[in-house]
């Protein structure tokens, strides 16, 4: 392994470790606001990574684990919005708890969009992956439009 590659691999491992520790630390606090923010931040990082792959128009395999991560994050997302967690350092809209069913539906359809992207990334057709990535982004925006304050 060239020293450059070694350094890159080390850096990647360090990032993963720090990320995992960071996520766990905030989960451990039992603070739903911090938990969901960490979870959403992880969604953002994954979307950023996927965009880089889509823009490169190369092999789509690196999208698979990122899309899977988003799907698993979103599957548990609604659970991090317990009633009463609308005050404090949060942008969650109080409307979430007025329309909890719709909020959950938006979460489910975003989860489904992430799973669809994971599947198409496995198949490897870059054009389909780009389209599915676009749809997933729209589903993130759709929930933020209605249920995240500025």
């Amino acid at each position, binding site marked *: 392994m060239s020293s450059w590659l070694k350094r890159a691999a080390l850096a990647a491992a360090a990032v993963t470790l720090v990320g995992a520790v960071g996520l766990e630390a905030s989960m451990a606090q039992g603070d739903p606001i911090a938990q969901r923010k960490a979870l*959403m931040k992880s*969604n*953002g*990082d*994954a*979307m*950023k*990574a996927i*965009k880089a792959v889509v823009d490169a128009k190369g092999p789509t395999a690196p999208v698979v684990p990122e899309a899977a991560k988003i799907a698993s994050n979103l599957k548990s997302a609604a659970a991090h919005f317990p009633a009463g967690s609308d*005050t404090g350092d949060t*942008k969650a809209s109080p409307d979430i708890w007025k329309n909890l069913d719709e909020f959950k539906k938006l979460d489910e359809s975003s989860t489904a969009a992430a799973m669809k992207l994971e599947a198409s990334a496995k198949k490897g057709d870059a054009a389909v992956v780009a389209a599915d990535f*676009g749809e997933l*982004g*729209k589903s*993130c*925006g*759709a*929930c*933020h*439009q*209605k*249920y*995240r*304050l*500025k």
Partner: protein
Amino acid sequence: MGLLLRWSGSAVAGLALAAAALAPPAEGQTPDADAIKRGEYIFNAAGCLGCHTDEKNKGPRLAGGRALRTPFGTFHGPNITPDPTHGIGAWTEAQFLRALREGRGADGSHLFPAFPYTSFTGMTDADAKDLWAYLRAQPAVAQPNKPHDLGFPYNIRALMMAWNWLFFSPGEFRPDASPTPELKRGAYLVNALGHCGECHTPRNFFGATRGDMKMAGAVLGDGAVPNLTPDPDTGIGKWSPDDLVELLKSGMTPEGDFVGSEMGEVVANTTGKLTDADRRAIVAYLRSLPPIRHHVRKPAAK
């Protein structure tokens, strides 16, 4: 003579036949259909949908009822479908142009600037007429308007006369200096159609946008609207043009986040539906603005 006549007669018939063969099929290509198509683009670029559709309560398209909260009270976007009683079906094109240009209702009374005629006044005649053609072609919905819920003295329409005198300069959009065609287009899209300043420019005590703080960010309701001037610390100075174009297209930020609240709606209804060239023009124009250092703080939580 008789022969000549017969010849010219058949020539006319021949011409008519040729014209008929050349004439476009009725569907999709009549000049009117072209105007409607162009009008749809203007409709999107000007973001007419949101304020006139009560999406939250699944209200019919353009039939009004959307509540718009302002410091002066709650406005309800009116019905702008071609229904003759509840919508604008009985309006003439001239009345519609006057509404955009001068902020006047069908009867000449003053409209409130919650309808952003202060921006739309800059729309070109051609665009305004195409927009009219598009609106005329939408399905009519017989849904009565909800009255606005405004405090005194803001509920007095006639007061708008004084407001207009103080703060409103009507007229087609004129770009400042003599910029490139792209900057000119960007300025038109941002100022006359997109009315981005309605949210991104702070307002004075009377609710008029402040000329000295153009696009420098503002407090709107319970949150902060970001500074869009190219200041590196408090504005978009550190964003690359591609990042800004991507945000306008899909709503995605360089952090992989997706804009929400009002801007989510702007991306879904307006900037996401523009051509890439128009998005680039908007970005070029924003980056050409004088940078203003202005950190917008979210108002303290209630």
